[in-house]
């Protein structure tokens, strides 16, 4: 898929995100908008997947884990647009009896979700277990995971990082959403992450960096990581993003981490995001 098509998809996904969050006046638009381009890249260009016949075990296909589960709006929109479930179902987000829970869950049987997430720091461990089983099963498939930068303050992430290098898990590609923001403010003010690249390198990972809003750059790091299969070294991408990307008044601030736009703000946002597919 070329970058024009990917950009068009991303624009529609961003429309979905702000409409979903506005409709229930709850949810997390900032991080969702910031990770839109990555998820569109993975699901529409990179991953070998079977949306029509969702298999919890993911036999023979690539799998993705969202560790920072609060950005569920972007994942739900991408899954729906990719054909995992009807796009109309996006209107049920966070409502009673919905399969689209506030944070991703398996209990309601939403296709595309393989583990619950939301309580931070757990997804890398899960992704590593799945990656090891793919190797045990003799698959040449990949496991992708996404984590917030603030999430790296959780200790379990570093337990998992140490484990991955020790066990030479090289069929995992983990992305860190480096937007520099968390609920209470900037990561620098709340709990400085310091030299992130140095930390991951010290834990035995190959560290790549990219612009999370440039499809060509995303494709570059994915290709580079794929080329390192067999090295016995796990790969992490420190992906620079802007929280709230695509909606000017939401960009670059933690204030839109977890609040919903008003009616006027929704109209303003939608004016900035052209509808490229039909709205749900």
């Amino acid at each position, binding site marked *: 898929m070329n970058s024009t098509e990917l950009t068009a998809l991303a624009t529609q996904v961003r429309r979905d995100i702000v409409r979903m969050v506005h409709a229930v006046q709850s949810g997390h638009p900032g991080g969702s908008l910031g990770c839109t381009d990555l998820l569109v890249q993975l699901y529409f260009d990179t991953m070998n997947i079977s949306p029509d016949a969702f298999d919890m075990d993911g036999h023979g296909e690539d799998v993705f884990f969202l560790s920072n589960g609060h950005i569920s709006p972007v994942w739900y929109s991408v899954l729906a647009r990719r054909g995992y479930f009807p796009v109309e179902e996006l209107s049920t987000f966070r409502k009673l009896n919905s399969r689209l829970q506030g944070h991703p869950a398996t209990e309601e049987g939403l296709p595309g979700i393989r583990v619950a997430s939301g309580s931070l720091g757990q997804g890398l461990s899960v992704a590593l*277990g799945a990656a090891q089983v793919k190797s045990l099963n003799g698959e040449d498939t990949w496991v992708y995971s996404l984590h917030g930068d603030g999430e790296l303050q959780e200790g379990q992430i570093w337990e998992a990082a140490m484990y991955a290098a020790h066990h030479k898990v090289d069929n995992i590609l983990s992305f860190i959403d480096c937007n520099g923001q968390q609920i209470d403010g900037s990561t620098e003010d709340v709990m400085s992450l310091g030299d992130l690249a140095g930390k991951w390198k010290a834990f035995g990972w190959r560290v790549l960096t990219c612009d999370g809003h440039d499809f060509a750059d995303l494709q570059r790091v994915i290709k580079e990581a794929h080329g390192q299969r067999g090295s016995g070294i796990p790969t992490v991408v420190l992906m620079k993003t802007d929280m709230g990307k695509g909606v000017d008044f939401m960009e670059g601030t933690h204030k839109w981490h977890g609040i919903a736009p008003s009616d006027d703000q929704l109209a303003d946002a939608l004016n900035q995001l052209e509808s490229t597919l039909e709205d749900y």
Partner: protein
Amino acid sequence: MVDTHHITLSPTESKDTRSGFGQGLLEAGQQNDNVLGLCADLTGSLKMNAFKDAFPERFFQVGIAEANMMGVAAGMTIGGKIPFTGTFANFSTGRVYDQIRQSIAYSEKNVKICASHAGLTLGEDGATHQILEDIGMMKMLPNMTVVVPADYEQTRQATLAIAKHHGPVYLRFGRPKVPVFIDAEAPFELGKIQKVISGADLTIAACGHLVWEAIQAAVELAKDGIHAEVLNVHTIKPLDEKTLIESAQKTGHVLVAEEHQRLGGLGSSVAQCLGANHPTAMDFVAVEDQFGESGKPAQLMQKYGLDAASIVRKSKALLGK
């Protein structure tokens, strides 16, 4: 005389229940290629060495990182594997409760959480390691099955049974050598109470190490003409309510014995069941809202009132004798 079923009152050997787990895991691995073992730096203590040696490619050393172990195990179910995690009960539950809750129980992952050194009988290491709240924590989680077998052979059988059961399971066992009293050919069925002694005067419902204490108590009570029915409630969740209620209807008095806090363990499950279905006079042999301490297992069980003598005393009091 007591009317026994599938047990011996004169066991000839003692073995630790953790060794029953180790043997069961080895056999489960032989029966099913999908069985995996994970351990957090306690391979010898958990008796997982036989599995590790037989299936090195299916054994994963996790190091001292239990939270990661639970997450990795959850991930390993995706792809059809059946991971068994091994560490002490304290580090299998309280330390990793949120990981179990979100990544395993809520996500309905087929992980077997296998926990050794539970309760006071861990002994000299003291209260930091003697978890007495784990049954309560685990039974409260939706989707979780909770199993507390009574001796070596039953722990072996339980390990094989949970490998065949699809869904998250908490399997609790212990460190000390205790009598092997259950017949090797005794049937083991998840979710079914095993009646080991029949009686009409009172019911003693016990789990884990307290089952043997309850049997010894029943023998003592019989000398005074009190005929206790002893139920081995090896599956605490789901609770076999039918067998429990039938026994309570017959005896009218129920004493629950467990190596756990009185609040939240088997006793509270039994009380909740009987309170709703057949209100019955009850009492409890359990730890009374306190932490343990260092000591030899038998000394601790005596001091904290978790032995046969205590069961005899409370049984008589319950019967007004």
